[in-house]
């Protein structure tokens, strides 16, 4: 279990760093998919199989493809590759390192260090569905409404403005 965690953590962090640091956008998207797959592996390791599959379906399957489509529509793939070596870039990295330092110090000082996992609970899709249909039915409906509104809004935003003769 320990080795699996460290291998998956290395894959996830390497994928995330590459997704944020590589100069070409297509490579960034591929590395982002690798990081998402690594996170899905972590969810499997933690015993949340359904979330893991949802992660693969939604992030690797939908969000990464959506990013590729946006790249295609904005002709970003043949944009000149850009490294981040500018001064504001270094400032941003410094801020991120500071944030990581604060978070790591908080985690180290929180007394959670020796926490061991309780015995693994039984997570069946049936139990999840029963929860979603009973206690969490209102949030479920709200998320459904939000997704519908967001997708209609996305279509309207990306729709070509034909009234002005199309720009």
């Amino acid at each position, binding site marked *: *279990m320990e080795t699996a*965690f*460290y291998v998956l*953590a290395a894959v*996830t*962090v390497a994928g*995330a*760093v590459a*997704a*944020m640091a590589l100069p070409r*956008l297509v490579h*960034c998207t591929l590395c982002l998919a690798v*990081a998402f797959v690594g*996170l899905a592996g*972590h*969810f499997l390791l*933690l015993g*949340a199989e359904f*979330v893991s599959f949802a992660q693969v379906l*939604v*992030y690797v399957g939908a969000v990464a493809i*959506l*990013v590729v*489509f*946006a*790249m295609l529509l*904005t002709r*970003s793939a043949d*944009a000149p590759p*850009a490294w*981040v070596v500018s001064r*504001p870039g270094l*400032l*941003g990295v410094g*801020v*991120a*390192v500071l*944030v*990581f330092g604060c*978070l790591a110090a908080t*985690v180290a000082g929180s007394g*959670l*260090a*020796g*926490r061991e*996992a*309780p015995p*693994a*609970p039984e997570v069946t899709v049936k*139990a999840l569905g029963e*929860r*979603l249909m009973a206690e*969490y039915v209102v949030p479920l409906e709200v998320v459904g409404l*939000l*997704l519908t509104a*967001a997708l209609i*809004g996305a279509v309207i935003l*990306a729709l070509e*403005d034909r009234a002005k003769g199309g*720009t």
Partner: protein
Amino acid sequence: MPPLHAYLLLSAALFAIGLAGALTRRHAILVLVGIELMLNAANLNFIAFWRYGARPEALTGVLFAMFSIGIAAAEAAVGLALIIAVYRHFRTTTVNDVNELRG
């Protein structure tokens, strides 16, 4: 099982990487990718706290992570549609060049 703080540190690292990317990259799509990474770090925290928490059979962390994934999907769709709309208007996706309020 690895200890809980290993997951928390991994999640903090992912959040910091996403933040660095969102702050430094000039391309609008990559800014959005950085935000997605930060959201994923939060999801990892939900699941880790659920697994190591007091009552994992209540499934609260799993359900919270699923709602969070749904909201992140909506956010990605709207964000990319905005980027396409901005590209159509300004003919660029570099965030530094989009600096006019009246196009």
